[in-house]
């Protein structure tokens, strides 16, 4: 049977998860803004995952499937 403490525990866990998801969304939108200066890509093809490792470090993986590499100014000419 679900107790009051279980209800509180679930709510706290959900709160922490949604905090992490929100942080990831903000990071993804920042990353999108940065990458679109350099690449033509479909936003659906930008993927970002974060894993909390056992030692407390965070592993962040960004995957992008781009259509074209843009020339930025004249630096790439």
């Amino acid at each position, binding site marked *: 049977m679900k*107790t*009051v*403490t279980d*209800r*509180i*525990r679930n*709510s*706290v866990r959900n*709160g*922490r998860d949604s*905090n992490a998801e929100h942080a990831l969304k903000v990071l993804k939108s920042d990353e999108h803004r940065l990458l679109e200066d350099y690449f033509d890509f479909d936003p659906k093809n930008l993927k970002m995952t974060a894993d909390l490792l056992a030692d407390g470090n965070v592993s962040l993986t960004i995957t992008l499937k781009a259509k074209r590499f843009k020339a930025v100014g004249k630096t790439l000419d």
Partner: protein
Amino acid sequence: MARSIVITSGKGGVGKSTITVALGRELCRRNQRVVLVDTDIGLNNLDVLLDMEHRVVYDILDVVKNRCRVRQALVEDNSTAGLFLLPSAHAYEASEISAQNIRLIVNSLSSSFDFVLIDCPAGVELGFHRAVAAAREALVVTTPHVSAVRDASKVIPILKSYGLDSRVVVNRSRGDLVVDSEMADSAGIADVLGCGIAGVIPEDDYINLQSNVIPVRRKKSDGLTAIEVLAQNVLYGTETVYDVTKRYRGILGAFKRGLRKLV
């Protein structure tokens, strides 16, 4: 040097200010020199709870603006000798006060007191950071309700990032509901929050009346005993938990629980 403790919660209305005043008074009774700092700028409460709003001459903003010295702004409690308050500003001029200002004020008070209790505003906005930055320890007040515990769970990691040693105070706990498993007990809350318990305060009419500054004759109550235990835990670093369920266990307790549900 004084111990600077911020009393915070995240959620509003859980009893931060009431506990700040009660804890301050109790520490004073134990021969500690205590100053309360109200950092809820524009929404000052501690002066009202201490029944001294008509005696406030200078406030924290006057200190920041160098219109007076910190000592001049302090107001002593009428009922507890040795308990002082640095009142919050009445006008809403929060942007005039920075975290550095509060830190300097707390540091200057540290040499004259044993405890600086900082009453933090609700929320995790600028006011919260301003109060927290000046403290070295934190008491996170929560009620046993899911929304308050969830907010406390969001505040505790922020306090950790400031390097504060945090402990939880569970306020307005009802022993009858805890026995019937209709309210979370303090051990469960501590487990969820991953924090030690500094105190458990039962729902108590006496504390409610006191916070409305109504003179009451009753000298001893469950709430006051729990505050004494809290003060002892704060003073000596112990984790004694006041048992809110003791009145509601056994045959007589079952009768009391039944009565409370009927009323």
